[in-house]
């Protein structure tokens, strides 16, 4: 276990009536990072979150969360983590303020601090003016913000967000994204389950792709590099066969393909080697119109990793 790890799961497994939801999951979440948990429906993301928040017990394996071992100090784990469930689960007949006050008391916040703490989070999330309204009268985005406030109220070390922007309109999603970025800026550890890959790409320091088993975990950029390497695209006014041969002969080029008017060149260090590549092409009389780095969306990375995971099973 690294000194910086706030969650360490070892061979965490959960079975339901013979069906394996999560299998031998080894995962480390570092303090202050935003870790994205990606995976198709039924991949075990929610089950993983439920195990790591001590809501359900693993069938085998174990985990340490905030220094407390699952099954031995579950109450302590619950005290140190916050969870935003996929559905906010608010008490819709009760006021916004009452919803938070209840949780403040359940988390053991001293009675004299309850009011101030609730006010702080309601103001932070722009809900103070609506504090007396029944939670059921809020818009979906506001309900989600209230649920985030509820998860944050006891200032947990780790925040689990399960599909925080599912069913939100773009404006609501943007509000939630902004708040997550703010939390990230404060150095809060966040585990984010999402199907929204653009959201994961934007918010997460690392991505864990899960399909019952952990397929891969790394920073989005490193996942891209690991899967595809780095490549540049050079668009030429006119392509001649000798250009292709000359580029292929360069020692730092791993591969080159011709795609229409473009050369797709794979190389490890574009920043260092691009000048030599461009120089060589110009020497041969090539007219370069554009040069850009090839980009792969996280969606491509994710789909390839899931396929890879299926093939390895």
């Amino acid at each position, binding site marked *: 276990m690294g000194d910086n790890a706030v969650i360490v799961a070892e061979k965490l497994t959960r079975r339901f009536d013979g069906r394996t939801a999560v299998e031998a999951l080894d995962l480390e979440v570092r303090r202050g990072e935003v870790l994205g948990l990606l995976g198709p429906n039924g991949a075990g993301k929610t089950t993983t979150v439920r195990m790591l928040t001590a809501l359900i017990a693993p069938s085998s394996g174990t985990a340490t969360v905030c220094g407390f071992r699952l099954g031995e100090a579950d109450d302590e784990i619950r005290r140190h983590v916050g969870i935003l*469930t996929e559905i906010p689960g608010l008490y819709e007949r009760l006021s916004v303020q009452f919803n938070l006050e209840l*949780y403040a008391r359940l988390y053991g916040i001293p009675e004299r601090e309850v009011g101030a703490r609730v006010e702080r989070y309601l103001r932070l999330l722009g809900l103070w003016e609506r504090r007396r309204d*029944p939670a059921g009268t809020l818009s979906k985005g506001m309900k989600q913000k209230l649920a985030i406030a509820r998860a944050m109220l006891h200032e947990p070390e780790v925040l689990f967000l399960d599909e925080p922007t599912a069913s939100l309109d773009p404006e609501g999603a943007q509000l939630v994204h902004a708040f997550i970025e703010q939390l990230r800026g404060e150095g809060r550890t966040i585990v984010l389950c999402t199907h929204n890959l653009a959201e994961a790409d934007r918010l997460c320091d690392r991505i864990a792709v899960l399909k019952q088993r952990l397929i891969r975990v790394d920073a989005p950029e490193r996942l891209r590099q690991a899967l595809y390497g780095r490549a540049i695209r050079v668009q030429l006014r006119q392509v001649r066969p000798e250009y292709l041969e000359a580029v292929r002969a360069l020692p730092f080029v791993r591969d080159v393909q011709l795609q229409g008017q473009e050369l797709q060149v794979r190389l490890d260090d574009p920043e260092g080697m691009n000048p030599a590549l461009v120089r060589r092409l110009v020497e041969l009389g090539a007219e370069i119109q554009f040069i850009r780095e090839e980009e792969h969306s996280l969606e491509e990375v994710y789909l390839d990793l899931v396929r890879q995971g299926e093939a390895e099973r």
Partner: protein
Amino acid sequence: MNWMRVRAIVWKEWADAFRNRLVFFTLVFMPLLFTILPLVNLYFMGRLPTEEVDANDLGPFLLYQARFHLGDPQDVIRVGMASIYLIIFLILPLMLPMVMATDSIVSEKVSKSLEPLLATPIRVTELLVGKGLAAAGPAVAVTWLCYVLYAGLAGLVTSQAVVRVLWSVDWLLGIGLLSPLMAMLAVGIGILVSSRVNDTRTAQQIGGFVVLPLMLIFIPMFLGRLALTATVFVVGAFLLALLDGVVWFFAVALFQRETILTRWK
């Protein structure tokens, strides 16, 4: 057991329930109705001409004559009728918590509010005690209050002999002992039923159907085989406590974090 957390749950339950019209009207109007109707009945019974009552008409109520030393045959009939209303007062602590408990649990299931609640450090026993107290407490209090009101106002509409029976140790013991036990039974059954259905009214109907057999124990009373005396109440309380134990054993087994999140439908 952290009583601060239990108290927080109780307050939440009450705040939520009293914003629900069905629960509110059930808690207020049903007890009122159950208090007024017996009084009206006793009032009109007091208007029966004495000569119309024959000793042969006393039938099943004869048991009360000896037990409470009642001389006037009309008093015997009045006490007999009052004993039937006593049963109504024992139905109150069954119905009211059933409505509250099923509404509380089913609405938590439907709104998915149990998962975030269970993610807090609250223990399931605290949650269960909080929900149980919130549902059973008002029901027992309302039952006792209604009975006191009924027995207190009875003097205005019926004979002193009947009032004496209403305030007798036997019947006070019955109301005092059986109401909490009935309420606990209703909450336990409410939890069991609510774990399987997703609609409050269905839960209440099934719950009502489950407690219906309990009413069978009153048949011997109507047939004149059983008078509601202290002995009957104590034995009844003992049996009810056993039944409560069985029902709560299953309710507690069902009310576990893991079960709620993975097994409740």
